[in-house]
C-alpha cells in the first residue's frame, strides 16, 4: 500500500481475529501485554511523539472496530491516540469508548514502556514488532545514536501490503481440514480474586542455562516448560485425587506456535496456531520423566506441516462456510458466542506462550534492561504463562485470576532445587 493511511483504509478481520470481538468481556479479555524496561525514566511526551510517528507508519494499528452487515471490520480511526500511565490491572478489557476506539494501549511507568493489545488486531509476533518500533523511535527522540540494523521497522520505511495479509487464508487447504473433536480440559481450581485483579509473578532466569538444561533432557525449552507445567499441575492439584470427577478431565497445555517460522509470511496480523499436550492424569505415580517423553511426542506430532495446515484450514473452512458468511452479523455474533462458550473456551487448562528471544539492534541493546510478556487470566484459564527472553535474561511470567500461587511456587522451586538463581517480580495482589 503505497499511500498514506487515510479514510480509505480499512481491513477485514483476519481469520483468528474474527472470533475475539464476540467472545471478549471484562472477565475474558483476550488481551496480552508486552513490556520493555529501559535504562532511563520514560518521558511521557516523547513517548507520545514516538507512538504517533509509528501509528502513521502502521495504518493497521490506527483502526477502530466497526460492524458491517456480515462481518465486523477495522476502519480508519481519525481520533488521536493517547499514551497512559500504567495502572495496576494486568491485561484488563480494552474499552473502545474510553480510548477513542483504539484496540491497544501504550502505557508507561518509571523505566517501562508497556503495550497491551486486543488479540483481534495482532498476535505476539506482531506486537513485538510494534514494541520494537516504538522503543526505537523513542530512543531516537531522546537523542540516542542508534541504528535499526534491519531488525526494527522504522517510521521511514514504507508499509508493505504483505504486513496486512491474512496469511491463514493464504495457506488454507480445502482437502486437509478435518475437524477433530476435543474433550473438555481440566480447569485449575482456586479461590477467585476480585474481578478487577490479576495476579502476576515473573521469574528471571538465565536463558543459556535454561536452554542447556532443556537440551540435556533432549527437549526444546518450550517442551521442557510444558512438561514441567503438567507435572506441577499434577502434583499440586490432581495426584491422589484422581477419583474426583473433575480431576478426570485431561490436562491440556496450550502452546501457541508462531507460523511465520513454518510458512513464508511477514504478516503483522494473527498468524499463529497451537500445539497441545494432553493427558488424563488419574494415575497416582506419574513421573516427570514420563511427561517429558509424552510432551515431546505430542508436540512433534502437532508441529508437522500437515497437522498445522489442518488446524489452520479447520478454522478457515468455518469462516468460509457459505451459510455462516451470509448470516447477518447480529445473528452470527450469537452463533459464534454460543459456539465458543460450548467448545473453544474450555478446551485448555492453561496457555504457555513462548514469544522467544527478542532481538534488538546491537546499538540499542545498552539502553534496554529487559522485556516482559503476559497474557490475561480469565474464568476458565485461571492461570496462564508466558515466556520471553532478551540476551541472557529469560522471563517466565505467570498471570492468574486465583489467589493460590502453588503452581508458580512449585514451578520455580523445581529450578532453585536444581541450583539455578531466580529473581522474582510480583504485583503483590494477595494483600487486597
Amino acid at each position: 500500500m503505497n499511500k498514506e493511511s487515510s479514510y480509505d483504509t480499512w481491513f477485514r478481520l483476519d481469520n483468528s481475529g474474527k472470533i475475539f470481538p464476540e467472545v471478549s468481556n471484562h472477565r475474558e479479555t483476550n488481551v496480552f501485554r508486552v513490556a520493555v524496561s529501559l535504562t532511563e525514566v520514560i518521558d511521557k511526551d516523547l513517548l507520545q511523539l514516538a507512538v504517533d510517528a509509528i501509528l502513521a507508519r502502521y495504518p493497521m494499528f490506527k483502526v477502530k472496530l466497526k460492524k458491517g452487515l456480515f462481518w465486523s471490520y477495522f476502519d480508519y480511526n481519525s481520533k488521536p491516540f493517547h499514551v497512559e500511565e500504567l495502572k495496576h490491572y494486568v491485561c484488563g478489557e480494552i474499552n473502545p469508548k474510553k480510548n477513542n476506539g483504539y484496540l491497544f494501549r501504550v502505557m508507561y511507568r518509571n523505566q517501562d514502556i508497556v503495550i497491551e493489545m486486543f488479540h483481534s488486531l495482532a498476535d505476539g509476533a506482531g506486537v513485538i514488532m510494534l514494541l520494537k518500533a516504538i522503543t526505537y523511535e523513542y530512543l531516537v527522540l531522546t537523542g540516542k545514536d542508534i541504528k535499526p540494523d534491519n531488525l526494527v521497522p522504522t517510521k521511514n520505511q514504507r508499509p508493505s501490503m504483505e504486513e496486512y495479509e491474512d496469511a491463514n487464508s493464504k495457506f488454507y487447504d480445502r482437502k486437509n481440514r478435518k475437524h477433530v473433536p476435543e474433550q473438555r480440559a481440566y480447569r485449575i481450581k482456586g479461590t477467585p480474586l476480585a474481578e478487577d485483579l490479576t495476579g502476576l509473578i515473573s521469574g528471571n532466569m538465565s536463558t543459556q542455562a535454561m536452554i542447556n538444561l532443556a537440551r540435556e533432557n533432549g527437549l526444546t525449552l518450550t517442551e521442557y516448560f510444558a512438561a514441567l507445567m503438567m507435572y506441577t499441575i499434577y502434583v499440586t492439584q490432581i495426584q491422589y485425587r484422581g477419583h474426583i470427577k473433575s480431576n478426570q478431565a485431561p490436562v491440556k497445555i496450550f502452546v501457541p506456535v508462531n507460523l511465520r517460522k513454518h510458512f513464508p509470511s511477514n504478516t503483522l496480523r494473527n498468524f499463529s496456531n497451537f500445539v497441545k499436550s494432553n493427558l488424563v492424569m488419574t494415575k497416582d505415580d506419574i513421573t516427570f520423566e514420563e511427561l517429558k517423553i509424552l510432551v515431546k511426542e505430542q508436540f512433534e506430532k502437532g508441529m508437522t506441516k500437515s497437522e498445522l495446515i489442518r488446524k489452520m484450514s479447520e478454522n478457515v473452512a468455518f469462516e468460509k462456510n457459505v451459510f455462516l458468511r451470509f448470516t447477518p452479523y447480529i445473528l452470527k455474533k450469537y452463533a459464534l458466542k454460543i459456539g465458543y462458550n460450548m467448545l473453544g473456551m474450555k478446551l485448555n487448562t492453561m496457555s504457555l506462550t513462548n514469544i522467544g528471544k527478542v532481538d534488538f539492534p546491537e546499538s540499542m541493546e545498552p539502553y534496554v534492561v529487559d522485556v516482559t510478556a503476559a497474557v490475561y487470566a480469565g474464568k476458565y484459564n485461571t492461570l496462564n504463562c508466558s515466556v520471553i527472553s532478551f540476551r541472557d535474561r529469560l522471563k517466565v511470567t505467570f498471570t492468574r485470576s486465583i489467589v493460590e500461587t502453588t503452581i508458580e511456587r512449585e514451578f520455580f522451586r523445581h529450578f532453585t532445587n536444581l541450583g539455578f538463581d531466580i529473581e522474582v517480580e510480583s504485583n503483590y495482589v494477595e494483600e487486597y
Partner: protein
Amino acid sequence: MKYCDKCKISINTNNNYCPLCQQVLEGEQNKGVIEKYPEYVSINRKIYPLTKRIILFVTIVSIIILLIINLATFNGKWWSLIPIGSTFYFWVLISVGVFSKQNIAFKLAFLTSLLIGLLVLIDQATLQEGWSYNYIMPLLLFTCNLAISGIILIKRIDYRDYILYLLTIVILSLVPIILLFVKVISEPWPAIMAFALAVSILLFIIFFFPKSIKDEIKKRFHA
C-alpha cells in the same frame, strides 16, 4: 534485594513476604525500592445513580398498574399498550438519544424510525384515522433527512460515518410514496415532499461523493 530461604529466590521489593510461599523474606528493610508494578486502586464498578433507580422503579410500577387496570376493565381493547409503548420510547430516547456515545446520525435515524413505528401502532390501536402515515411518517422522514444532511454539511470531518444512516433514511423515505401508489395514503403532498428531498439528497451524494459511498458500501457489506 531480599531473599526467601524456602523458595530460594531473590526479589526486589518493599513488601516483607514472598509472593510464592507467603513466608517472611530475609534481608534488610529497605523502603526505598521503586516497585515494578503499581499499587492496586479499585476500579469502582458503575452503580446506577439514585435518580435512575427511582425512575426505573416508577416505570415498572406504572406498567404493572396500567396492565392491571386494563385487564380489570377489559372491553376488547389493549389501550394500556399506548402509555406502555410511550414509556418504553422515553427510555430509549434517554439512553440512546442522550447518554449513548453513538454518532448523531445513527441516533436520529434510529429514534425517528422507532417513533414512526410507535405512532403508527397508536394510530392503528385507536380510531385508525391514518394520520400517522398520512402526515407523521413522511414529515418525520423529511425532517430527519434534513437534519442528518445538515449535520453532515456542517461537520464535514466525519461524514463517512454518517452517510450510511442518511442512506437508510433516504431509502425509508420511499415508503410513503409507495403507500401513496397503493392508495393507503390519501394525502399526497407530505409523501411527495419527503420523496423529493430524498431523491435530491441521493443525487447530491452520487454526484459529489461517489467514491465514499462506494467504499462505505464495500466495507459494510463484505462477506
